[in-house]
C-alpha cells in the first residue's frame, strides 16, 4: 500500500476497467484510497471478483457498473445507476477505447462510426452528464485517455488517430468551459503500452516503436495509471487543459 494515499476519500469513475490500463487504474486508485466506480461493457464473475477483492484489500468501495459505450441510451441508464448511488463524484477517467489499424481504403464507414462512438461520443456524453454532477460540488477532474496516434500521422491510423485527436480538442475546450467551476480537464497520450491492445501489432512495428523511445522500452499500464492518478489528485490542482504524453519520448523522437 502507498505511504500517502493520494486519492483518499475521492470517488472516481473509470471506463473500460476490465483489462489493461483501466484495470491497472482501478488497482492504483484503490491502493491510493479512492472509491472506484469500475465500468465494463459486460458483467462477468472475474470482474466482480476483481472488484470485491480490491475493495476488501484496500478498504474502499469498488462498484462495478456495466453498459455498452456504443449505445447512447445504455450510457444514460448507466449514468442514472451511478447517480442513484448518491456519491459525490470527484473524477472521471474516459479510458475505454477500441483500437483499429487499417488503411483508408480498407476502413468501412460502419467501422469508423463504431470507433467514433466508443472513443469520442461516449466520453463526450459521459463528460456532459458527469460534469453536471461535479458542478454541484464545484470541483472535479476529468482525464481523457487519448493516444500518441492523435499527435502524429502514421499509415493505418486515420480512423483511430482522428477519434483520439477529437478527444484532445474536447479536452482543451472543456477545460476552458468548466474551469470557472473548478473542474479540471486533462488528457494523457500514451505511446505503445504493454496491454492486450498491442497483441495485434506486428512484431517489427513493435520493435521499431520500442527503439524509437528515448527510454528504449514501451510503457506499462501503471505508467499510465500513475499519471492519471496525479491528474485526479490535488497534486495537480492548478493543471488543466493539458495534454501529457506518456510515451518515453517517442513523439519527440519523431520530430527530429
Amino acid at each position, binding site marked *: 500500500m502507498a505511504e500517502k494515499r493520494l486519492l483518499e476519500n475521492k470517488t472516481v469513475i473509470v471506463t473500460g476497467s476490465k483489462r489493461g490500463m483501466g484495470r491497472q487504474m482501478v488497482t492504483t486508485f484503490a491502493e491510493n484510497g479512492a472509491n472506484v466506480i469500475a465500468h465494463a461493457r459486460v458483467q462477468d464473475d472475474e470482474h466482480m471478483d476483481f472488484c470485491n477483492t480490491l475493495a476488501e484489500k484496500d478498504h474502499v468501495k469498488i462498484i462495478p457498473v456495466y453498459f455498452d459505450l456504443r449505445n447512447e441510451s445504455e450510457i444514460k441508464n448507466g449514468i*442514472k445507476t451511478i447517480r442513484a448511488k448518491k456519491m459525490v463524484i470527484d473524477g472521471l477517467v474516459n479510458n475505454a477505447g477500441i483500437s483499429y489499424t487499417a488503411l483508408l481504403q480498407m476502413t468501412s464507414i460502419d467501422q469508423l462510426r463504431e470507433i467514433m462512438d466508443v472513443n469520442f461520443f461516449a466520453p463526450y456524453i459521459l463528460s456532459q452528464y458527469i460534469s*453536471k*454532477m461535479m*458542478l*454541484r460540488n464545484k470541483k472535479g477532474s476529468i482525464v481523457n485517455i487519448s493516444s500518441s496516434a492523435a499527435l502524429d500521422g502514421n499509415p493505418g491510423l486515420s480512423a483511430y488517430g482522428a477519434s483520439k485527436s477529437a478527444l484532445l480538442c474536447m479536452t482543451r475546450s472543456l477545460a476552458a468551459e468548466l474551469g*470557472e*467551476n473548478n473542474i479540471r480537464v486533462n488528457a494523457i497520450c500514451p505511446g505503445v503500452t504493454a496491454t492486450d491492445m498491442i497483441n495485434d501489432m506486428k512484431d517489427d512495428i513493435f520493435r521499431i516503436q520500442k527503439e524509437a523511445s528515448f527510454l528504449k522500452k514501451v510503457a506499462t499500464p501503471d505508467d499510465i495509471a500513475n499519471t492519471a492518478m496525479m491528474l485526479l489528485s490535488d497534486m495537480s490542482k492548478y493543471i488543466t487543459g493539458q495534454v501529457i504524453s506518456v510515451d518515453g519520448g517517442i513523439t519527440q523522437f519523431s520530430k527530429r
Partner: protein
Amino acid sequence: MTNLELYKKSFCETFEIQEDALKGLVYQGIPSWDSVGHMNLVATLEEAFDIMMDTDDVIDLSSYEKGIEILKDHYDIGF
C-alpha cells in the same frame, strides 16, 4: 415546500434575483443567466428534484415558464 416553491428557489439562488423577477425571465435576459449560469441552474434543478435532465431538455430550457413545462412533461414533476 411545494414543487413550485422549490423551482422558484432554484432560480432565485442560482441567479441571485428576487422572486418578482421570475415571470417572463428568459435565457440571457439577465447577466447571471449566461451559459455558465445555465449549467449551474440545470445542476441545481437536478439536485432539487432528483432528476437527470436530458441534454435536449437542457438546450430547450429557454425561459422560466419553459422550465416548468419541461419538468412537468418529461419528468413527471407536478406543479
